[in-house]
């Protein structure tokens, strides 16, 4: 890892520590420090991506680069959203996830085989990365929703205040993320399907690869979530679980792709 990458990971790690400490009772004033460190991390990360692009490695040139880019998007979206809404508890989940994602991307062995990209492949990776990042943020909000729901059902006001974000806000933001992520993810699936069909990889060894099935399953889960919300008023806890399930699916697809190409 480059010095710049280590510095960005360091800044993110300090921010993650502050957010986690806040969740377990550290004073509120420290959260501003968390936001500042996160801002520093995002800025360094942006510079890191810029330097890599300058050297010919774009965010969509490989799975590790895409993962790092997704981490950057999650951190950036969280930072911007937290300026508008009180999302401190979400930081305790989002920022450590960002650190983990960068470390995984940077410390994992280089990909053994990179399929021929072409414009279609690049479009697919870019859309998939954006979709995964938005779903990851929705999943973080869903986790916080479930925590908040539990605290309020148990009438623990102090815990609910430590989480800090009202249920209704969490539900609304998560829905907004899913609504944005879904069309992006749909396009990612379509471009991906055409891309692998052109490469003749759709049926790897005579059978349909499992990650493609998981991707379709994930797409269906999010489609159900959106339709059920509009049609049957699915919100709150049910929507949170379905969002987590959907994100779990996308994470599995990314993991399967990552492992296959690292092997």
């Amino acid at each position: 890892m480059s010095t710049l990458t280590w510095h960005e990971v360091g800044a993110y790690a300090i921010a993650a520590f502050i957010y986690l400490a806040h969740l377990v009772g550290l004073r509120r004033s420290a959260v501003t420090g968390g936001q500042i460190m996160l801002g520093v991390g995002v800025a360094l990360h942006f510079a890191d991506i810029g330097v890599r692009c300058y050297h010919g490695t774009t965010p969509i040139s490989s799975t590790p680069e895409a993962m790092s880019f997704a981490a950057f998007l999650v951190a950036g979206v969280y930072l911007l959203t937290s300026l508008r809404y009180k999302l401190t508890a979400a930081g305790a989940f989002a920022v450590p996830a960002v650190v983990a994602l960068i470390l995984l991307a940077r410390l994992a062995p280089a990909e053994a085989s990179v399929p021929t990209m072409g414009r279609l492949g690049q479009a697919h990776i870019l859309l998939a990365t954006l979709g995964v990042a938005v779903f990851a943020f929705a999943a973080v909000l869903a986790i916080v929703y479930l925590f908040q729901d539990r605290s309020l059902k148990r009438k623990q006001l102090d815990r609910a205040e430590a989480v800090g974000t009202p249920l209704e806000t969490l539900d609304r933001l998560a829905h907004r993320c899913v609504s944005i992520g879904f069309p992006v993810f749909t396009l990612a699936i379509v471009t991906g399907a055409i891309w692998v069909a052109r490469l003749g990889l759709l049926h790897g060894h005579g059978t349909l690869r499992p990650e493609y099935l998981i991707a379709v399953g994930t797409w269906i889960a999010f489609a159900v979530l959106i339709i059920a919300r509009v049609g049957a008023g699915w919100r709150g806890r049910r929507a949170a679980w379905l969002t987590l399930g959907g994100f779990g699916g996308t994470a599995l697809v990314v993991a399967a792709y990552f492992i296959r190409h690292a092997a």
Partner: protein
Amino acid sequence: MAGANIDLLLVGVSHRTAPVAVRERLAVEPDAVAAALAELTAIGPVREAAMLATCNRVELYVAVDDPDRAAAGLAEVLARRAGVAVGDLAEHLYQHRDAAALRHLFRVASSLDSLVVGEPQILGQTKQAYEAAVQHGTAGAVLRTCFEEGAFRVARRVRRETAIARNPVSVSSVAVDFARQVVGDFARRHVLIVGAGKMSELAARTLRTHGATLTVINRTRARAEELAKRFGADVADWNDLRGALIAADIVIASTGAQRPVLTLDLIKEVRKARRGRQLCLLDIGVPRDVDPAAGELADIYLFDIDALQHQASAHRAEREEEAAEAETVVEEELARFVKRWRSRQLGPMVSALQAHFQTIARAEVQRVSGGVDEKEKKARLDLVEGAIKKLLHLPMTALREADPDEVLSLVQAAQRLFSLSPVAAVPAEDAPAVNAEKKATGS
């Protein structure tokens, strides 16, 4: 911290020393404050006066020349206002002087002496009391320093550095906080008040001030209309309870009915029609107005009186713990204040002493410098002044670092030894208008 020599005297009654029957007799209407302050400053030794009058205390903070005579005069004024004999009021009165009075003021402004420790109103009331004194010309340098540089600063620090006021301790405030964690911002939220209990009134008022829209529903429509008029709320017909529940974001229930008015079946029906929208039910009635099983339903958040009271008690206990930390802040600030006050007292004396020595030095240099040029004369003057500075350094340091109990006698000794005229800690231009009048009338 005796001997700080702050000239501050406090005489008063509070919820700790006097029952409400006594306190209410001492209550002062806002438009009578000017007359009351004038009455206080008419007492001979009182130079400055401020009066803090709330439902839990009536306290007179005065800057005085003769504390014993002033205390007796203030007790007489209070007794006259209460319409009782001085002896009858004496058992309820307390008085503090000097640093003790200042400590009391700091504790009051920081809400450490309040009935509900950490309550936020007292700081505002203390500010109002001081501003009234400023407005009516009865506050001068002593009160300005004690309130502005002391009490308000301490209160701000206590709030900033301790959690004494962080969490609410009243049931209605806790209810509002629970609701905030469910629905967030109250602006344009619909609050349904079921029944017309006193507790629901308090919570509803708070929600109303945050921009919520209120609707009152009651079995007796006339009672609902009466309550709605007080809040500026709408009224819903009891027969449309289901519809009103579907439209609401927050429900405050307090009916006095013997059985739950909001039954499990009704809530289930409402929940279905709400299509997943979260509903916050604040049941502050006894007996309970909402079937407790409703709280188990998804998207329904029920907080009954037990939950609210439990949380309020927990917060009260937290405040008591934080109060110990706040007391430390008060003591630190008191020590800082007294130190600054002493250095202000010493300042004029130090200047007078230096001026005294310099005058002598200049005269002596002048005497022995006949026929020497200006350059030589200046060099001699610099030499002597340098020697004076060095000679005065040790005694001045000793004065600054002297024990508070000693400092006044040391100052007096220095004044006597070097024939310096006594100098006041308070600059003359800072004295309130009332003193000028007193001087003019010779009182």
